[in-house]
């Protein structure tokens, strides 16, 4: 029998599938729903210092019948003080809760990460990659040096594992990943959404309230797999032993396996819930398990990064 469990965020996860930040996780009750449907861990909505209403509607929509989602939510969140309630509720699900936070600098991030640690989070994820909010997210996360400074500040402020969530909207995602890990991150999460825009020709206007947004869902899978592959390749070259969490466009076990074989130790699932609901966690977990039984893999680790060794 194949063993799906992985050990990367402190407590062991029964499977490598996490709920991705920002999809059905602003409230504790919704995170519990994902746990009930089989998520091995949940990542919270990205939370900042103050309550934030986010951008004006339209904030998200589907494009091309299941192809993807374009969103510019604008990081709505109740603020870190009010968020304790949600983390506490999520924790009753009995799986690790990873607190996602966003801020402007090392000081903001350290404070927020400390709060998440106090609330009981097993790890923190630093949102250095949201493409549609001013002065935060990828505005600061596209520069390897700045990422290093922030990660280093947070790593010395908390004792739980720190993960840096990266943007694909750069030419050098592996440089940023390396910088994060050298500054003390346990690992990286790749990828956040791709910058995008949809215009309605009839009105001559971009449809999103914020005009610019982030593309997610099935359409971005190849970009995510490529990003994880490049990061793993660099980690191997530099002999760095760090965790990679793959995210972006995963809808099936087949998709999840691509990320694992590119180098991901665990995975996050987001947009696909638009089409398959939270039941997709169970579906993907059993699909991976069937594949492993069929192909003779006994642990997830046995498959991690095997595409790296394939002959060119």
């Amino acid at each position, binding site marked *: 029998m194949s063993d799906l469990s992985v050990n990367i965020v402190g407590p062991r996860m029964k499977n490598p599938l996490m709920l991705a930040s920002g999809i*059905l996780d602003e*409230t504790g009750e919704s995170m*519990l729903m994902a746990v009930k449907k089989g998520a091995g861990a949940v990542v919270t909505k990205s939370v900042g210092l103050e*309550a934030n209403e*986010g951008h004006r*509607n339209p904030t*998200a929509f589907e494009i091309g*019948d299941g192809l993807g989602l374009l969103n510019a939510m604008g990081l709505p969140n109740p603020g870190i003080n009010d968020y304790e309630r949600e983390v506490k509720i999520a924790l009753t699900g009995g799986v690790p809760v990873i607190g996602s936070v966003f801020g402007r600098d090392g000081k903001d991030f350290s404070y927020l990460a400390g709060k998440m640690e106090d609330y009981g989070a097993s790890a923190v994820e630093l949102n250095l990659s949201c493409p549609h909010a001013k002065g935060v997210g990828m505005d600061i996360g596209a520069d390897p040096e700045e990422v290093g400074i922030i990660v280093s500040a947070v790593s010395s402020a908390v004792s739980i594992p720190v993960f840096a969530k990266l943007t694909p909207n750069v030419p050098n995602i592996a440089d940023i990943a390396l910088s994060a890990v050298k500054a003390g991150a346990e690992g990286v999460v790749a990828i956040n959404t791709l910058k995008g825009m949809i215009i309605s020709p*009839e009105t001559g206007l971009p449809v999103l309230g914020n005009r610019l947004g982030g593309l997610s869902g099935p359409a971005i899978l190849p970009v995510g797999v490529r990003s994880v592959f490049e990061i793993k390749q660099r980690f191997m070259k530099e002999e760095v032993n760090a965790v990679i969490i793959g995210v972006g466009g995963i809808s099936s076990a087949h998709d999840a396996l691509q990320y694992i074989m590119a180098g991901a130790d665990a995975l996050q699932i987001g947009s696909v*819930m638009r089409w398959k609901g939270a039941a997709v966690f169970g579906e993907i977990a059993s699909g991976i398990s069937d594949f492993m039984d069929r192909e003779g893999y006994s642990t997830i680790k046995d498959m991690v990064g095997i595409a790296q060794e394939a002959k060119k």
Partner: protein
Amino acid sequence: MKHSEGLKGTDIVEIEKVQRETHDTVSLYFTHHDDAKTGQFYMVWIPGLDEVPMSISAIEEDGRRSVTVKDVGEATHALCTMKAGEQIGIRGPFGKGYTLVGKRVLLVGGGSGMASLIVAAREYARVGKDVTLCIGARTKEDLLFGEQAGIKVEVSTDDGSAGFHGFVTDLAERLLNEDDYDMIVTCGPEIMMKKMLDIASAREIKYEASLERLMKCGIGVCDACAIGGYRVCKGGPVFPDTILLKIDEFGERRRDAAGRVVKL
């Protein structure tokens, strides 16, 4: 929409007809070819301004649709002042509609909730069910959809200017005392819907309600309209008594645009 037709965020439609319903409520008619069902909603884009959830208030086989908008703020005001020929964007239909079960049905509505409930009332009547529609309003001037062909309508007003003088829930209880019903369907202010849930469960009558929460994506990903682990946009807006009885925030609390818990 298929990829081959191009990728769009919303379907642009032209308003074909504007019908004033009350002093603050207007119906906008347009054509949108879809498989809309009773109780579903659209996300309606006012280009360049905002996008808001609106129940589908008429569903015709030829694709004619309407939304019925009450002027309560910036976006709804813009919709209420639109003219035939102007454009809006339509996403949807979204959500789970009414189950349309029951033979002797009491529908209880108030305010803009009538926009959704009226379609259920018409559909029950069309398939020959015994329907009684209770409409609550503040005054006679606020009464929405007061006269409907083939449907028994009972009215209540807070000031007694039309029909029963008092709460629509008291009117509904009076009707329940006089006759047997096997289904209660409600859409309107949440306090009213909560009261009707209590009444229905005390009398062991099946019940469903169409809820409102602040909505953003409309497609079940962003969690803005969360209630008790469900999303109103996808799990609802129509929920059965069995679920609502287990959600302690129903009739008590909601979330603001930042996701903070606030009292209703």
